[in-house]
């Protein structure tokens, strides 16, 4: 009985949280030193000879659809050929003296909407001033051609949920989906091949023609 009464006694103790704060501070210092705020990633492209036929693509596939992005002195040329493609030959002029990669990306989203089950693109270099193209511009081109940005992909997921009448989270409800991304989502979901593939990619199978 005495034991019970001992336990019921009120203990006026303070929890010593100084060690846990010390641990937190040390952990934060450690994380700050080791955290990688930038991440090394890579974008893959194949090197091909002068003709895209040399690429690892079947001849029939190229006969049906071929998308070519060409670096020219005046800008970026976007061209499509093939039996299942409407012929396109468009120049995206230089914007403030530099290649318009944003414009290229926007046009490629439109093209992907038209051809949702096509994944390959060729990049050619036909500029006389070879110094105008450098590693950064090649990377920007690959980045624009290959996939949607994280933000665009987020918007696409929202559009996908809306089409499927799925419930949206509070953050998703506030997200504005642009018209061209909405059209892209509809096109991708309507196509069986595209529906089952990674929705984030545009034209990931890139061949660099005449790079070597």
């Amino acid at each position, binding site marked *: 009985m005495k034991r019970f009464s001992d336990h019921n006694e009120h203990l006026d103790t303070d929890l010593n*949280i100084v060690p*846990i*704060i010390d641990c*937190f*501070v040390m*952990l*934060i210092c450690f*994380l*700050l030193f*080791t*955290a*990688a*705020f*930038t*991440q*090394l*990633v*890579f*974008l*893959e*492209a*194949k*090197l*091909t000879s002068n003709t895209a036929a040399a690429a690892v693509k079947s001849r029939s596939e190229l006969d049906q659809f071929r998308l070519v992005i060409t670096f020219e002195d005046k800008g970026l040329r976007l061209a499509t050929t093939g039996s299942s493609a409407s012929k396109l030959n468009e120049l995206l002029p230089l914007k403030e003296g530099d290649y318009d990669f944003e414009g290229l990306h926007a046009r490629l989203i439109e093209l992907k909407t038209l051809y949702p089950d096509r994944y390959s693109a060729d990049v050619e*270099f036909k500029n006389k001033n*070879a*110094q105008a*193209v*450098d*590693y*950064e511009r*090649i*990377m*920007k081109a*690959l*980045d624009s051609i*290959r*996939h949607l*940005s*994280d933000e665009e992909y987020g918007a696409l997921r929202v559009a996908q949920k809306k089409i499927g009448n799925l419930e949206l989270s509070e953050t998703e409800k506030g997200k504005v989906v642009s018209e061209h991304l909405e059209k892209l989502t509809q096109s991708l979901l309507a196509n069986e091949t595209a529906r089952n593939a990674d929705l*984030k990619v545009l034209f990931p199978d890139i061949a*660099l023609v005449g*790079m*070597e």
Partner: protein
Amino acid sequence: MESTLKKRKHLESNFELQITALIDTLVIILIFLLKSIATDTLELEQSKGITIPSVTNGMTTGTGSKLDISAEGVSWNGQTYLQTAEFDVKKPLNGADGWKALNAAIAATVTEEKAENKFDGKLLLQADKKTPLPVLQEVLKTAKSHGYKDIRFVGAKYN
């Protein structure tokens, strides 16, 4: 005088440091840092003297032989073979020997990997963002002549 001392003593005895807010802040910082840490990253170190261009996205898992191009030279798997001034690969500082050494090093890697059935023709290219197209063409021509056809262009993604 006596009353003032008494008051001060009384105040000191009742003083308690409010560290709840401090703990809250520390926990939030901790969560933020844990969230921002990149869990998957490429097994590659950024080479010295190279400013890598930024990209919005890319792949993080993949291997390959490492080819680095900076204004000062061209390296193969971490070893500099071609010494240049301002990307001038046509006239390397170490002359024709530089190109010979680079070719020999690439050939040695290919032979070694082929003997172990590991050769897949994939190359991790890390170049300075200002590397001109003709320099890339020249270096990649050499790499392709040894069988490297899949080029993995390395960039930096900001989290």
